[in-house]
Structure formats: C-alpha cells, structure tokens
C-alpha cells in the first residue's frame, strides 16, 4: 500500500520506520531540511524535504495514487490543511490527522478528515479508566463519531439502583448493552435488577450521553472533560 506521511517528528519518524518494516511503500514529507536529511540518512531516499501543506509537493510525492495520507506534525492546523488538500485535490481515499487539541476532533471530522488520532484523548481515557469517578467513561467512538461506547458505574445516589431496564427511560438511539458485575460480563435481561457497583456499558448517540448520565449516575450531569 502506498502511504504518504507528513511530518518527520517523533511520531512521523517511528511511523515511517514501522510502515517500511511492514513492507509498505512510503514517502515522508518533512519541511525542515536538516531533520529530513537526518531521517534520510537512516531510512534512505524516501524522505522529501518538502512542506506537505503545499499542493505541488503533495503532487510531487504522488498523492494522486496514495491509498493513505497521514498528517502527523505537531500542529493541528498543518495536519488539517494536509488532509484537506489530499482529499480535495488528489482524491486520497483515506486521510488521517493527528490532533492535539481534542476540541478540534469534531471540526476535522466535519471537514472530511477520515480518521482522527488524538493522543490527548487517548491519555485522558487511560487516566479516566484508572480513577473511579462518578462519571461516564468514554470507551470508544463508532460510526465516525456519532455513536459512543460509554461505561457508567452505578454508585450511591444512582436512580437506577433497584430498578430494571424497563424502568429506565432512555431516548432513542441509546442502548444498554452489557452489564459488568463482580468482574463478569453478562447480558442485560428484562429481569436484571441494577445494584451498587454494577458497571453498565452502553452505546449511545453522542447527544444522548446527558440522559444516560441522569438515569444511571444521577445528579446534575457533570460536563465532560473532553470535547
């Protein structure tokens, strides 16, 4: 597969090496000539000292036949421009942007970037999973971000305690999926009665997360830490 990587920082450097090792055809665009030379000394002539934000440089790199363009510089704005140029001028089927500000994820997706990798959100998710807060935990996003897989821990004060699924009002597009009780996953059945300590995995449309919070955790929904 032909992949163009834009940005020769730490991420771009290791990404290029891994992709090469996996046998893919790669070109790396790094605008700083010194850095480009440094990487080229190690991986060979697949490094172009060019700014991937410019259409002519993407053309030079063969963007019109690339299966993937991955923009992994440290600057969100550059990654956005690379992906938009790749998408709209070279019809690249799949564009991937590294996003540092989690707030930019939605905008980038809306503007047509296919995959968004947010190291900030990933680390945030790892931290959230370590701290048992009375919050919805965001486990994954599906369908281009419209659906989310969430975990709610039923704690003291939860209105769900002692209730069955049928007693819990949830909007359309929000489904309780699986129950984790005593570290065992089990299906949520009509006769299931929720109790303290249960963890409920739900799949919901992003905008229904507030309702889910109210029904399973209770109190005023705390605003999400991340966008």
């Amino acid at each position, binding site marked *: 597969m032909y992949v163009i990587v834009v940005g020769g920082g730490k991420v771009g450097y290791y990404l290029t090496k891994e992709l090469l090792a996996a046998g893919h055809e790669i070109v790396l665009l790094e605008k700083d000539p010194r850095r480009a030379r440094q990487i080229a000394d190690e991986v060979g002539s697949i490094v172009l000292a060019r700014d991937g934000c*410019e259409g002519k440089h993407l053309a030079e790199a063969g963007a019109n036949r690339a299966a993937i363009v991955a923009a992994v510089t440290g600057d969100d704005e550059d990654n956005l*421009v690379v992906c938009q140029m790749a*998408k709209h001028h070279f019809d690249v089927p799949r564009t991937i942007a590294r996003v540092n*500000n989690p707030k*930019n994820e939605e905008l980038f997706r809306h503007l047509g970037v296919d995959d968004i990798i947010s190291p900030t959100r990933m680390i945030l998710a790892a931290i959230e999973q370590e701290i048992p807060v009375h919050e919805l935990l965001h486990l994954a996003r599906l369908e281009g971000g419209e659906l989310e897989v969430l975990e709610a821990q039923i704690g003291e004060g939860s209105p769900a305690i002692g209730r069955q699924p049928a007693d819990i009002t949830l909007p359309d597009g929000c489904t309780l999926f699986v129950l984790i009780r005593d570290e065992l996953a089990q299906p949520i059945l009509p006769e299931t009665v929720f109790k303290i300590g249960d963890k409920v995995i739900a799949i919901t449309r992003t905008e229904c997360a507030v309702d889910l919070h109210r029904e399973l955790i209770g109190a005023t929904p705390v605003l999400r830490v991340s966008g």
Partner: protein
Amino acid sequence: MRAMIVGCGRVGAGIAERLARAGHDVTVIDLQTEAFSRLEADFSGTAIRGDGTDEDVLRRAGAEGVDLFYALTEGDNRNILAAQLAAETLHIASVVAKINDPVRAEAYTALGIATICRTRMLVDALAVHAGLPAQPDSQGVSDATGHDHGTAHEGATMTATKA
C-alpha cells in the same frame, strides 16, 4: 457591528483600529501581548492574549454572534483553521482568511472560504504598474466560489458562496 480579529500584526492592528474608530465593537486576539503595542494608545476595542485557533479561547473572547471574523495571523494554516472554526463550529456568517500562498488561497476559495491573498494583490498591483493588464479576480477579498467536491462543508454554513 461586532468584529473579531485574530492576529494583531500590521494588517490585524490596522483593520482593528479602522473598525474601532468607525464606532464598531472590536476584539483582537494574539498569542503575544507585545503585538498589541501596534494598536494606538486610545484603541477603544478589546485586546485578548490567546490562541485564536482554539475554540475555547474564541468562545471566551465572545466570538459567538460576531458579525465579522478576520483570521489575519502570519500563518496561512492557522488562518485556515481559525476561519473554519469560526464558520463551521461557531456559525459566524462573514469570515475571511488571509492566505498568502496563492495556490492555497485558491484551493480554499474553492472550498468555500472567503480569502485575501497579499501575494496575489501585490503581484497584480505591480503588473498593472508595469503596464500589464489587470487580473480581474485578483484584488481584495475573493468570494468563496463554492464547493469543489461536495464532501466537506455540506452544512452550507459558509456564506459568500457563489454558484
């Protein structure tokens, strides 16, 4: 009228002053406090230090509901990001991005962003001075010409879109 200007360089400070003097409510954002020294001492608008490509910063600065949004930093890509945030996320009707690379300016005009390109304007002015014919579309703010692929901007929230 309320205007927000991102980037307090010569151009940003210049238009901020002109708008403020004309009695409009102007907010200027720049990463560097020193940039605000370009504003005249009796500037009647608001100057805020912050990253104008950050949605939170823009909202806190009161970007929602402004009538005009000009992205005028020194970085083309920063202006592109700020302008798209303003149009798509904050739904500001009138947004202009300064994009000095003519190729990129043309590309984003086609994508639905009104742009102003210093390079194009200067080259055209000099060409005219040299006696060459003027390029009809190369002066001032280019209206967005529309959507070239129809994949992005489907919300059609960009204004100044011609068919």
